[in-house]
């Protein structure tokens, strides 16, 4: 009954934080820190009770490894971000509601991952959606929360429909049994409608529009949670749709593309498209948070492809990428939030040279992007390596092309905030700014450490994933002491790290043996012998990849497309309105009769 206590405490603390914030804003913020840390610790020790089932009221829960893994990643994102809450209370419009929603959505995620039946899952899912909708509204724009809610609602309703459809066949809501006995067209309908909420949440291609809107304009303290945490709920749905709904078995006799049944390959292709779209869009963003949001779209594609592969290696890569991206993305968003805390902006063209004022934040961001771009020795490399190996096993050449594109493209976009925000000349306005306090630095350092840990000792995390793989009947990925073994070769991340350190040491020795260099100001650079005095003008940050952007700058934006469609629908509605609701009653009667006759005629023919 441990989980029940966690849930109860979190919900109670959520209510309490609302009232505490009324009395003292800072104290309310600290309440979220304490209760999320408590949830994290309690969840960590929940590992002993894996396999237990229990029920609270009508809700049934079962503690599984995969639920434990997912909820740990999620609550990690929540608890690390909560350290920022106390400092942002002053800037928040409704701090009490913010704290309340923050903890409530956390409780929702925990409940969702451990749900035993679909009704429980759906209720908790909707709790998260609703509470996060209200939080996003507290940020820069209301429009963002509409977009977020509309897309979430489409997904949720579709999933609910799928659950009901499956119920009509199997007669049960229990996750492990609900999809039994599906076949044919029904199976395809259930599969696609069920995974729709997952796709919407993880930001897969046609549904990715909410991520930049919501991430970009949510409060700075909630963006890390959105990107590092809530997006991963979609991965959970994707996971359920290939395990609880045994897609590979049900679609087993369908046409196979590179070894994957067509419906699954279709979803993987969507993942690949979102890698490409996310990468291309991220490259041309001018706002750091929107850029990172689009990078979440791209990384969501990797996670989806990995999980849908459902094999020994690629699946492990997808699950590993889940935690890597959560850690890296949360750290990057926190670093940007820390910069925004000091400068008050997230626009890249309005900042520069923050490295001289905030070196620790810079290092945090650097490590985060190294992990996000999949460069050794950070965690992102290990998971991308596993996904590449999985793709190479099956020869999925087009998905691999997209994955490579996203991987190299990520060097391009992650470098932009690094260069625009942190490197270059410090703006005159920011010359007196200070590094953030230790309390804010602490979660960032923890996440940085985690990035390094996942990269150097990936097996600690992969062991959990092998347990998940065993629990769903897959062959687990082969792990030796420090190495990951796949059919195509092995990776010893620790040794790679050591050799990297060796190379670094040699370079360092050569560097310090040579004479010390004279240090000059950043304004004293080669400017073709021209005198330049304005720091802001010398810093090159906006339109960074202009020649490359120009090549696809005129391509249609998905959001514009949706807007056009909505206008068309409104026009269509206008047409119907003018037909049926005109001033002349005889016209209405005529159309109603006409429609009625046509329906009868068609019915007769059929």
């Amino acid at each position, binding site marked *: 009954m441990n989980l029940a206590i966690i849930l109860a405490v979190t919900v109670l603390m959520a209510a309490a934080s609302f009232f505490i914030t009324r009395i003292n804003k800072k104290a309310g913020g600290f309440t979220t820190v304490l209760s999320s840390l408590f949830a994290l610790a309690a969840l960590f020790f929940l590992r002993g009770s894996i396999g237990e089932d229990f029920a609270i009221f009508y809700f049934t829960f079962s503690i599984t490894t995969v639920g434990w893994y997912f909820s740990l990643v999620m609550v990690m994102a929540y608890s690390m971000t909560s350290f920022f809450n106390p400092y942002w209370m002053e800037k928040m419009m409704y701090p009490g509601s913010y704290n309340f929603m923050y903890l409530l959505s956390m409780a929702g995620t925990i409940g969702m991952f451990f749900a035993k039946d679909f009704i429980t899952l759906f209720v908790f899912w909707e709790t998260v959606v609703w509470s996060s909708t209200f939080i996003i509204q507290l940020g820069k724009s209301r429009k963002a929360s509409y977009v977020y809610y509309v897309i979430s609602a489409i997904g949720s309703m579709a999933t609910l429909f799928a659950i009901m459809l499956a119920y009509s066949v199997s007669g049960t809501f229990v996750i492990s049994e609900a999809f039994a006995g599906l076949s044919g067209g029904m199976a395809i309908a259930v599969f696609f409608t069920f995974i729709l909420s997952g796709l919407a949440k993880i930001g897969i291609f046609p549904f990715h529009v909410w991520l930049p809107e919501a991430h970009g304009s949510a409060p700075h303290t909630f963006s890390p949670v959105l990107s590092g945490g809530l997006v991963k709920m979609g991965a959970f749905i994707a996971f359920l749709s290939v395990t609880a709904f045994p897609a590979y078995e049900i679609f087993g006799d369908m046409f196979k593309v590179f070894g994957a049944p067509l419906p699954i390959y279709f979803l993987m292709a969507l993942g690949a498209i979102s890698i490409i779209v996310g990468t291309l869009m991220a490259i041309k963003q001018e706002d750091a948070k929107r850029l990172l949001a689009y990078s979440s779209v791209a990384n969501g594609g990797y996670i989806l492809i990995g999980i849908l592969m459902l094999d020994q290696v690629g699946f492990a890569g997808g699950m590993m990428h889940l935690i890597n991206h959560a850690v890296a993305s949360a750290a990057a968003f926190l670093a940007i939030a820390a910069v925004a805390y000091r400068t008050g902006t997230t626009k890249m063209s309005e900042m520069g040279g923050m490295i001289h004022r905030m070196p620790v934040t810079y290092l945090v961001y650097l490590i985060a992007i190294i992990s996000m771009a999949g460069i050794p020795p950070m965690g992102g490399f290990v998971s991308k390596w596993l996904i590449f190996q999985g793709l190479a096993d099956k020869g999925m050449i087009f998905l691999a092309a997209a994955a490579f594109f996203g991987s190299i493209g990520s060097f391009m976009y992650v470098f932009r905030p690094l260069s625009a925000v942190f490197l270059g000349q410090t703006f005159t306005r920011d010359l007196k700014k200070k590094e953030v306090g230790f309390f804010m630095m602490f979660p960032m350092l923890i996440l940085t450490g985690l990035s390094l840990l996942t990269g150097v000792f990936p097996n600690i995390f992969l062991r959990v994933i092998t347990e998940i793989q065993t629990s769903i009947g897959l062959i687990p990925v082969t792990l030796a002491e420090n190495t990951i073994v796949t059919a195509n070769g092995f990776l010893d991340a620790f040794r790679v790290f050591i050799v990297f350190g060796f190379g670094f040491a040699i370079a360092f020795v050569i560097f310090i043996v040579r004479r010390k260099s004279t240090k000059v100001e950043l304004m*004293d650079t*080669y400017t073709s*012998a*021209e*005198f*330049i*005095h*304005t720091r802001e*003008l010398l810093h090159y940050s906006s339109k960074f990849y202009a020649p490359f952007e120009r090549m696809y700058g005129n391509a249609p934006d998905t959001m514009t497309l949706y807007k056009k469609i909505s206008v068309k629908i409104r026009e269509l509605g206008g047409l119907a309105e003018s037909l049926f609701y005109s001033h002349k009653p005889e016209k209405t009667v005529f159309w109603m009769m006409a429609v009625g006759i046509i329906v009868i005629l068609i019915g007769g023919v059929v």
Partner: protein
Amino acid sequence: MVLKNDDNRNIWEKIGDYFSANSIWMKWYCTGCGAIEMPPTMTSRFDMERLGMGPMATPRQADVLLITGYLSTKTLRRVIYSYEQMNSPCFIVAFGSCTINGGIYYDSYATIGRLDKYLPVDLYIAGCMPRPETIMNGFNELIQMIKKGEAKGWKHYQENYEWYKKNQLDSLGEIIIKDEFHE
């Protein structure tokens, strides 16, 4: 400016000077008419690369600053700015009579007279303008000077910094200009 050859370099400096002498990268400041003499010197006919010389893009990378012609006061400000961005040991080679004593612009209000009052010139190549043969000869001379440790203009500049600065300010007023065109 007369430099005495007091050879008290240690072995490391001698080795370093050997490297410096055989690998000279130049920043080539196209001030006057002399710039046009450089392309033939670099390309197939005279092939400067066999001496280990080559063009470089910025003063930070370069070893030798070539002043190829007359210097107006405006240009001199930029040349001084560029020279101070160079990493020592760095040398200056000045071309043509304009840099030696003003040349045909000796009475102009806008061009300076002698360059070595403002910057430590290691080698003058006389002529109006010097042809590529002369330039190659001059570079050979420079290489010999560096090898022997005689090209110490940069050291001289550091030691007599006040003297040079005083001359520069007397003639130019100010080196770093800040006006509406330099923001």
